[in-house]
């Protein structure tokens, strides 16, 4: 059951830019249905597996959020008891980050990166399949915690020791959290190895590194970060497991351990993690804005440099999550954290430059990108505020931080994922999503996000702490919490519109064709969905937008490469 791909040397087509055919010599039997789901090593199938599972996880964690916001809609509410609330808050965060945000991006990487670089598949197809099973297994294991007596993990998604020690968090729910995260972590590491090897070794002829699309660059840098960060997380989790089961004392103070060791290890992973969750979606946004504006990416080299800077700097700022512990070198982390705003700003201006003097199609994916720009701008500004210790001493662990990270996470991760769905769904399925339903979905979600999280800035300034299951009526937090919860329900409704859109369009959407958006990169140079080894024909690659060059030879990039 092997397949190799041979590239023959046919006669050159007349006229310069004609594509040259590739031939598949050894066809292989194609499994269908459930067998295909389990055994296929095709990067496109595995990518879809990841994305569908991740989106389902997004809905599950979203429902958890709706329950939490219902508990907080009025003071002294008794909709949920404290324990249940703490489990929901922990699992909501854990699932959104470890099961939705990262894996959805890994799924996109799986599907799109080989196509964008002209490769027939990922470098290690069977290993890729294994990655998916470890991920799915991790998700299922951590959810099983809800069925145990002591419930699922309830100590917050960053699980500070000593709260996570066996005496403070007895029961298998916490262990399921540890194991679930370890499994999804291994899945991520294996995916990173796969993607990096694919990008380094399987590019099509002429696809030099500086001609790769920005999406592929962003995924590459993301995978560098995964390689650095996830092993540290796994090590931290292993030490925690030992403390819980083997009477070691890595974090337990009673035996000489250091609780703050957990925080250092965790955040050394945790900060690159949030860039792992953002960078791929920056890549999505770059692709969509460029295609929808009919322009090349403005400042391509600057974008690559900015992405590399963000990746590098993100490895040095971890303790800005620990300013209030009294145990970190404040100026070092403050300086680097402020510095990371600079390459992010460069990216913003490059996105604007891409739109500038373009012809902008306001498709749903473009609307989600515009939404991303607005949300991430505000989230980035509040991030600069939090990077400054004198302000962070006031704001840390309050709702201000919750507002900040939801603005950046929903802006980048969620809106990026929605933009990716609306942009690449035609490529995945061969059918278009309904644009009208998409616009309605965007509008409701955008209003909902702002209604939910903008008031939370003020709640934080007023002193409302994080992770409290209820609050008293005289604190002055009532009205803002009410607004916030109403907004949360709106987000749910808006998401439902997209879910309906997806279900309808898979069977009944308008047929898309190869390139419905006049896209510029190679994934649009093949059928929708692509054939088994991706390309029948590949155009010559002379820039980072080979398909645009082939389709519009009269409109190549000015002052080109």
């Amino acid at each position, binding site marked *: *059951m*092997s*397949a*190799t*791909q*041979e*590239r023959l*040397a*046919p006669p050159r087509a007349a006229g310069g830019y004609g594509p*040259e055919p590739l031939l598949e010599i050894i066809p*292989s039997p*194609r*499994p269908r249905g459930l067998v*295909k789901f*389990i055994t*296929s*090593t*095709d990067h496109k199938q595995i990518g879809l597996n990841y994305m569908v599972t991740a989106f389902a996880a997004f809905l599950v964690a979203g429902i958890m959020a709706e329950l939490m916001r219902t508990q907080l809609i009025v003071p002294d509410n008794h909709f949920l008891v404290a324990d249940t609330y703490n489990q929901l808050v922990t699992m909501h965060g854990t699932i959104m980050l470890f099961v939705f945000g990262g894996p959805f991006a890994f799924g996109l990487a799986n599907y799109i990166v080989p196509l964008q670089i002209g490769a027939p*598949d990922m*470098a290690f*197809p*069977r*290993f890729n*399949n*294994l990655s998916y*099973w*470890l991920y799915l*297994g*991790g998700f*299922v*294991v951590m959810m099983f915690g809800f069925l145990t007596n002591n419930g699922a993990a309830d100590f917050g998604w960053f699980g500070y020791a000593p709260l996570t020690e066996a005496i403070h968090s007895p029961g*298998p729910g916490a*262990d399921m959290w540890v*194991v*679930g995260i*370890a*499994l999804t972590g291994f899945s991520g590491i294996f995916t990173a190895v796969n993607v990096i090897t694919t990008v*380094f070794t*399987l590019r099509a*002829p*002429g696809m*030099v*590194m500086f001609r790769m699309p920005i999406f592929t660059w962003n995924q590459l840098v993301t995978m560098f970060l995964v*390689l*650095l960060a996830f*092993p*540290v997380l796994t090590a931290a989790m292993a030490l925690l*497991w030992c403390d819980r089961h083997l009477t070691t004392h890595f974090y337990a103070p009673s035996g000489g351990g250091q609780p703050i*060791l957990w925080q*250092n290890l965790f955040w*050394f992973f945790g900060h690159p993690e949030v860039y792992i969750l953002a960078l791929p979606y920056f890549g999505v946004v770059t692709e969509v804005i460029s295609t929808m504006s009919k322009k090349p990416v403005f400042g391509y080299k600057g974008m690559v440099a900015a992405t590399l800077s963000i990746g*590098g700097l993100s*490895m*040095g700022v971890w*303790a800005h999550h620990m300013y209030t512990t009294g145990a970190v*070198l404040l100026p*070092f982390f403050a300086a*680097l954290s402020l510095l990371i705003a600079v390459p992010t700003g460069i990216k913003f201006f490059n996105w604007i430059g891409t739109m500038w003097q373009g012809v902008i199609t306001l498709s749903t994916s473009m609307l989600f990108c515009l939404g991303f720009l607005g949300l991430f701008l505000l989230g980035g500004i509040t991030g600069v505020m939090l990077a400054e210790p004198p302000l962070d001493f006031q704001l840390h662990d309050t709702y201000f931080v919750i507002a900040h990270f939801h603005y950046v996470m929903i802006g980048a991760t969620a809106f990026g994922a929605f933009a990716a769905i609306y942009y690449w769904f035609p490529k995945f399925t061969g059918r278009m999503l309904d644009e009208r339903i998409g616009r309605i979905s965007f509008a409701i979600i955008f209003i909902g996000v702002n209604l939910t999280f903008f008031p939370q800035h003020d709640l934080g300034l007023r002193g409302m702490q994080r992770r409290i299951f209820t609050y008293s009526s005289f604190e002055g937090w009532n009205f803002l919490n009410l607004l916030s919860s109403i907004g949360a329900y709106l987000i749910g409704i808006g998401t439902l519109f997209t879910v309906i859109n997806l279900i309808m369009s898979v069977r009944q959407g308008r047929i898309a064709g190869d390139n419905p958006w006049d896209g510029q990169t190679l994934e649009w140079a093949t059928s929708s969905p692509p054939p*088994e080894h991706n390309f029948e024909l590949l155009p*010559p690659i002379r820039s980072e937008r080979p398909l645009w060059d082939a389709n519009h030879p009269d409109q190549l990039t000015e002052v080109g490469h």
Partner: protein
Amino acid sequence: MRFEYKLMMGAGVFLATICIIYGFWSQEATGTVLLLFGCAAYVLVAVYLLMQWRRRQGVDRPEDRMDAEQSDGAGEVGFFPAASIWPAAIGIGGIFAGVALIYGTWYWVIAGVFIFGGVIGFTVEGEAREE
């Protein structure tokens, strides 16, 4: 391979720089060790890529040449099996290994069966392609 090597080495050098500044300024053990290991990880990969580059004696692969034609990539690209049950087998083993960490040692037996069987099947499948 040269640019890829420079990319990884750049990451390693950057981490080394931060490690030195942080180590001397903060005198804090955890962060310094983590940055050091991070640097070592990237340098390890960079050295491997450098060896690959040297082995090619500096001849560019088609994907590193600005003027390459698609026909330059002619020939076998790699081994891309269309479907395989073995990753799922190993995956189930991995999941049971995780469950063993939660519920007890005897789950290692089940995990072991799946992992060993899966790895053997995986390897045999890879050899089968030689035919």
